[in-house]
């Protein structure tokens, strides 16, 4: 646990991971050659409003602890941008993949 606001190390999650009752939106960023590390991944709510941002791990993994709802995840990378949507209505891991082109 951290006192700060910096994101914890981004790691891959298993679909059945115990999230302690939290809503987790997680996934992987991929580019033309497979997993893409280091993209800036932004979590946007149903109105397109910004809710959070993390930098994907070298393997392209990211995760957010969100409120229940519909979310868009948007990845920014020097090679291009991409986005995807996910419905995360309850506790547990909600996985979403983002292709950057």
């Amino acid at each position, binding site marked *: 646990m951290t006192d700060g*606001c910096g*994101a*914890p190390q981004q790691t891959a999650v298993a679909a059945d991971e115990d999230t302690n009752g*939290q809503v987790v939106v997680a996934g992987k960023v991929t580019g033309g050659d497979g997993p893409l590390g*280091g993209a800036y991944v932004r979590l946007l709510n149903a109105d397109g*409003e910004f*809710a959070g941002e993390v*930098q994907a791990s070298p393997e392209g993994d990211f995760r957010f602890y969100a*409120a229940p709802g519909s979310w868009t995840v948007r990845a*920014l990378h020097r090679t291009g941008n991409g986005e995807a949507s996910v419905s995360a209505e309850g506790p547990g891991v909600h996985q979403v993949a983002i292709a950057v082109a």
Partner: protein
Amino acid sequence: MSREDVLVTTQWAEENLDTPGVVFAEVDEDTTAYDGGHIRGAVKIDWKNELQDQVRRDFVDKAGFEALLSQKGIGNDDLVVLYGGNNNWFAAYAYWYFKLYGHDKVKLLDGGRKKWELDGRELTTDEPQRERTSYTAKEQDLKLRAFRDEVVEAINTKNLVDVRSPDEFSGKLLAPAHLPQESAQRAGHIPSAVNVPWSKAANEDGTFKSAEELAELYKEAGLDTSKSTIAYCRIGERSSHTWFALHELIGLEDVKNYDGSWTEYGSLVGVPIETGAK
């Protein structure tokens, strides 16, 4: 005050990496970001281990700040260009902190580490070598810093700007969405605060919006610019970003950052709290 007085572009930064009297400093909570690659010549400042007192919840004192900057090789006459991750949250916090201790020659790299990376500019793992200095700080300028009693008194009298995300403001979450939920005892916001998330002051690439766009943003949110303003968030770094927008870019004169923020306020006994969206 113009944008150029307080911000430098990534282009300017790249052209001034070797300019004498210019010191780049990366400020992150997570120093592994710096260790994995930083702007050439930049020194590292760890906001948590170097800018905070390690026993009490407070900043390092004047002597501690002097020792830190001396050890980093930063002189009183150096122009310090701060940058970092998280859209410059902690760099903005350090900027405010440098101003608090009277270092006026300080600027932010607009867009921070993100813009630098999105531009495809070079990062290095080489450690910079800087000679030790004898830095002298001033006493804290408390015109920039709000404490809890002043915040409670400001309810319904001064502008209170809560810069956390809407879900933190309404009380649905206690921390930003990229963090495990922890911290204050109670969720919600300070009564009479307006909610203008810090992110509305920034573009997608992490650069600040223009002074005109910012003025419009806070006007629409109901900020009365004839009044004093206090900004807060969870631990005072996102509100430093908004303090920068209000005080340095728009140019409002009386703006304070409440660094105790929600982790303090939301754990105080007996103070009023509101929940729900506005």
